[in-house]
């Protein structure tokens, strides 16, 4: 017990004692970490069906009967890796979609090198993404794909759907920022006066380690101190340790971000907020969100400290589709994909929503989607 009459050092000692539970507990660390743990990630079987420069297209082996007509193309962010959507068998968005009867493709953006530093958002959206969509359309002889984007990948998907509405049947976005002029998230605040030119002049591509440091710094109390204290507290719980190691493996596997893409993203989105105002241009073509007339399902996390709800939710107001829906989940930026609670909510909801609009069985009594009046 700590009380008023304790000296600061006595309190500190008590606190340290409590943090580590006991010395014996801490002594277990080397032996626990020295063991072989099952901490593999991205284990759902897939084949690479398309490759171009650094990018690859993964096609996941279907599971059971197909219940959604059109294949789903997942577009992950350029920060961290797409394996987050398939972290472990019981926490896998990919598995959830496959089991729901979807045919799933996912873009792996690979590891950018110095030669990729001149690639812009245009090269990712009008270039790689469009060629991948063309490939899937040819492969299945279909006019449209279902597009699902995650974080920046979702922002790219919004851009794509606005530029090529004729190629997108349904759009699903999750924790994808579109409204950048908000002071709710720290990133939005910091980026406003960020000297992106100076950083790019010095580094070229933005180093993954630099981004990692920035993300950790956003909340050191939770992401640095509490996280590792929890790890120490549960060091003897092998499933906990394995889950922790999987997450650790994923979170610090950060590829660099191509310099010009980062510059354009910071300037056009964070600093000028052009996207939501329908003023952003890619290769001279203006992105008009009102051209998004297909059904849209937009997810965000109530406690997301990176992309707050205020940055995601306005999308539905701005699109031209009359079938748009916001879904707020009680979790954070990563929890939406990996928390056990969200597993029961996120992928099943997408499957349900897609089946209603694109199911193999004919939808009964559902109003067809059309533009807003």
């Amino acid at each position: 017990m700590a009380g008023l009459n304790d000296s600061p050092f006595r309190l500190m000692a008590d606190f340290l004692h409590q943090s580590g539970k006991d010395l014996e507990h801490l002594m277990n660390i080397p032996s626990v970490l020295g063991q072989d743990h099952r901490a593999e990630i991205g284990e759902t079987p897939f084949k690479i069906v398309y490759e171009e420069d650094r990018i690859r297209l993964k096609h996941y082996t279907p599971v059971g009967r197909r219940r959604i007509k059109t294949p789903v193309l997942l577009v992950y962010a350029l920060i961290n890796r797409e394996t987050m959507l398939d972290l472990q068998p019981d926490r896998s968005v990919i598995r959830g979609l496959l089991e729901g009867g979807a045919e799933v493709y996912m873009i792996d953006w690979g590891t950018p090198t110095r030669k990729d530093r001149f690639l812009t958002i245009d090269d990712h959206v009008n270039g790689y993404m469009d060629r991948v969509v063309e490939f899937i359309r040819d492969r299945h002889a279909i006019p449209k794909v279902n597009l699902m984007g995650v974080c920046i990948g979702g922002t790219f998907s919004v851009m794509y759907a606005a530029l090529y509405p004729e190629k997108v049947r349904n759009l699903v976005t999750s924790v994808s920022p579109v409204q950048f002029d908000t002071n709710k998230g720290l990133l939005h605040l910091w980026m406003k006066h960020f000297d992106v030119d100076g950083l790019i002049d010095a580094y070229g591509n933005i180093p993954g380690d630099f981004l990692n440091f920035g993300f950790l710094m956003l909340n050191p109390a939770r992401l640095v101190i509490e996280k590792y204290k929890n790890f120490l507290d549960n060091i003897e719980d092998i499933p906990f340790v394995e889950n922790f190691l999987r997450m650790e493996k994923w979170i610090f596997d950060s590829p660099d971000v191509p310099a010009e893409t980062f510059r354009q993203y910071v300037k056009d989105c964070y600093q000028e907020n052009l996207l939501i105002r329908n003023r952003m241009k890619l290769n001279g073509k203006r992105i008009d969100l009102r051209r998004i007339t297909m059904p849209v399902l937009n997810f965000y996390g109530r406690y997301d400290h990176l992309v707050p709800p205020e940055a995601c939710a306005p999308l539905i107001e701005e699109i031209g589709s009359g079938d748009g829906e916001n879904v707020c989940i009680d979790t954070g930026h990563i929890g939406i994909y990996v928390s056990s609670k969200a597993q029961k909510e996120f992928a099943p909801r997408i499957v349900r929503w897609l089946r209603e609009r694109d199911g193999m069985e004919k939808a009964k009594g559902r109003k067809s989607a059309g533009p807003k009046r």
Partner: protein
Amino acid sequence: MREKQTRVRKKKEAVTEDAAQQMMREVGDLWSRFFREQMASFGKAASSDTLESFFTEERKGRLKNHWQNFIREEMARCFQVTPIGPLRQYQEKTIRVIRAFAEWETACTEFCLLLNRPMEASFLDMEGEFLKKGRIGKGDIPSKDLFPLWIDALERRYMDLYRSEEFMTALNKALNAVTSVTKAREGLMEDLIKSLHLPTPHEMDELYREIYLLKKRVETLEGELKRRHGRTQ
């Protein structure tokens, strides 16, 4: 004549030796001042009932100033020689790196001290909690509640700091200093790379840009060709 030259050389050596000795003395003094102050504050805090005495802004400011003075004034002074002669540009680049490094060191010290502030403030918050509990007669806080209480306080303090103007200024200063030191270092490295007959990063970037633009042109031409083909068919 030869005797005069020897005298000059001896004088120069003496000057270099004096500068080196002075620098070493400065390092020693700085360390000794730092050590004395830390010991004094440690003793003071250990005999005190409150944490406040350990974390005075004045003490931190003094320490920061000592360090910055040493880096800026003493260390950089050793390299404040006007560059002349055929090797002037190399000398200039070296000086640029050292100055950028000194600025970086200063900006980073300031930034780290700022990042440390919520940590100190959260301990004081905890102390405040104990005092409050004591005043309302509730007495003790169970040990198991200490950590969550402290983490909440720490998180709150960091969020307050991160939204302040002071933090934004320090963050931008630190980032600018990092980019300056990286650029200055690259300038120096380019000379070394050139001397080894290797392509410099700058030259490689030019090449990559050309390849990038050529690929774009090929893509456009391919698209054009496809469209024309489609029309004639």
